[in-house]
């Protein structure tokens, strides 16, 4: 069955890249440009995996992850954060907020797909 991935990133370039990469690998992709819009997108959806950026306007990645984890309907959805290698502190904060795993930017397409597959139930 086709799995759905929600990607949350304020950069259009990054959103396009995620969409192209994941769609090429057979995922259905829904997208949002910040944390609040991400929560909005989750109202009618329960994706198999969420991929989110950290630095975003309105609601950042930490706030978004915490909000998803507080929602009992969505608490079990794996969330991957997009970080850069130098963001060790961010990675730990994201984990504390409830992130399942992380993808280091810039990501290699095979790596992204592999990580998404790895955490998807």
């Amino acid at each position: 069955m086709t799995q759905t991935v929600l990607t949350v990133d304020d950069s259009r370039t990054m959103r396009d890249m995620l969409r192209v990469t994941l769609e090429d690998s057979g995922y259905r992709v829904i997208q949002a440009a910040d944390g609040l819009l991400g929560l909005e997108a989750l109202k009618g959806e329960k994706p198999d995996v969420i991929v989110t950026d950290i630095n975003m306007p309105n609601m950042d990645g930490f706030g978004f992850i915490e909000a998803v984890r507080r929602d009992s309907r969505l608490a079990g959805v794996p969330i991957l954060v997009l970080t850069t290698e130098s963001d060790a502190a961010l990675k730990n904060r994201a984990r504390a907020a409830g992130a399942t795993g992380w993808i280091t930017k810039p990501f290699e397409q095979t790596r992204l797909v592999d990580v998404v597959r790895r955490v998807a139930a």
Partner: protein
Amino acid sequence: MSNDVLAQLRQTFFEECDEQLAELETGLLQMQDGATDSETVNAVFRAVHSVKGGAGAFKLTTLVSFAHVFETALDEIRSDRLEAGPALMKAMLRASDVLADLVSAARNGDDVDEALWRGLADEIAGFCGKEKAPSPAAPVSASDPAPAAFAPQPMAFTPQPMAFTPQPMAFTPQPMAAPPAFTPQPMALPSLAPAPAAEDAKAGGALRILFRPRVELYEKANDAVVLLRELERLGAMTVTCDLSEAPLLDALDPHGAYLGFDIHIVTDRDEQAAREVFEFCEEDCDLVTRRGAAPAAESAAPAAHAAAAPDPAAILNALRPAPKDAPADPSAAAPAADPPAADKTAAKPADPARAAEEAAAQRAAATAAPATIRVDLDRVDRLINLVGELVINQAMLAQAVQGADGARDPAVSGGLDELDQLTREIQESVMAIRAQPLKPLFQRMSRIVREVADATGKKVRLVTEGEWTEVDKTVVERLADPLTHMIRNAIDHGLESPADRLAAGKPEEGVVRLSAAHRSGRVVIQISDDGAGVNRDKVRAIAIGKGLVAADAQLTESEIDNLIFLPGFSTTEKISAISGRGVGMDVVKRSIHALSGRIFLKSKRGHGSEFTLSLPLTLAVLDGMVVTVDGQTLVAPLSAIVETMSLDAGRLRAFGASNAVIADRDGFVPIIDTAAELGFRPHRRVVGGDKGVALLVESEGGGRSALVVDAIQDQRQVVIKSLETNYGRVPGVAAATILGDGRVALILDVDALVARARGAASEPLLAAAG
């Protein structure tokens, strides 16, 4: 990913860069003006961060390196570890300029001289308490990104394996002995049926993994069953589940973690491969991995291989802990139906939180920027063209009906009126699609101001007004050069040095004001400075020195001011490095004219100068005067016409054999026989006393001429049709339009016509076409 897709992504990236750079500059300017709120600083940080992120994806190393230094400093400011003082802000603004340069170099694939950014990067790194910016980027590979090389704390990205080394004994106290309530559940995969030990030997080895998830693992939506699935990819796997910690159902917390797993994988992969599976959760579980142990020797395992082999899927299902949902799991079934108290209390605070989120989301939706779509410009232009056809068609229809009896039918005339109204509205709406705010253009000017201020040592503040005024995209684009030049001039020539300003009793900092507004269907842009104003004696002396005006010419103040627009007034050596490009105000004037615009200068000695540009909102329609010339209908752009006058015999003077001049308020103006210039008539006719009208036009260089036409028919908006694309370039004709009766009318290129006539050309312009 195909090259097409990559190219598309690249284009998106550069488009986004432009937006981010604009954001960046806006934010930095706000910070410079004292905005310290986190929203502003965060937006600035995100802008640089996004540029860096995308640049990394496209392996644009220089861009990544510079953005990283910039981003690091912004992060320091964001975290209150660094104060955004004036010196730092100045460096930041220069950094945003350099970043823009690097982006455009990357876009064009140009090589960048390291000198362009290295010094500034070091300077900014210096603000962050570092001597030097890190050394140039090693080539970025996607898996090992350059940013890492620039991490402020190099030790931050050492690999993490040390986190779990001390763990082994955490697991040993739990030998796989099960409590009496549960029979041990040894499980083996059917594929292992031939003696596993033998298989091990064949495959070259095995991995033994002891894995006990903690609650945190499940809380982060990692899942033991998913991890086991991944492990199974390494080779044939045997799993023994340790239920010894599992309480009886009534004591079982559905969110708890009770299971341990003893995993045996036949594989020649090393421990690292297994560790990688646990990459995201090794801190949330007890984990021991061992390589190559023969399973038979392991105390806990032997039973596993001896036992009957259930279906692997069944094993995985049996193992599925699914702490949050999945009532099928026996361990979760009972509590799921009636959540324990702990769950209820947890749910309570969650509800208001959720309500707050929803409210916030609604607020965001309400205040969110209006939804936009991106449309190919070609499509818009096609639509504009079609609407132009519609306007023409509507006019033709109206004209046809007027001639017929139908005009007397109120239903017909009413319908026509409505059609007219609708067509006009459609036209305006379509034009609005191409309209863009001047803001990006104005933002570019703030960079120019900084650069010129730095180069001249003057202190300048740019004040912008009306940057949301919208103008046709093409007009916006073609305004960039003239505007840049005028801003440079305003600072370089207009503003005095700080010392002179103080001496004149003015504040040290000069003000350049850039404003835009819509005024009666046109957009008016003003560039003013509070500098010394035009030095008329000097201007006059230069003009006389260059032979542009006679030494004894009687000139009004305004005429002297406008001498600066004359071709040949400014010279490259005078414009120097700052005003650059060797462009004079005559070129500015010509570019404005090319946009059907006009430019004026007002100046007051000691108080400054003000340039006023008046431009059409769009290049698709034109306000024109419809005239008759030798039986032909032509359109003269209204923007070029200063006034119209009758050809009174008393005002005409012959001038040479075939020329004449007409008296205007200030003197005599050469007469141009339009029909003859266009080749409708073989010879110039000396006008005098006969019927006809003179259109007094102001052309390039500020000179006035009188275009003689037979009659003025009308003044109206016409839809511009390019003659070049539909027919070919014709000197003296700017474009064409289609009139209500369906006939094509040529739109005059007044400048070319005047230049032609003045250049004593003998060949009529339209000789071939006439």
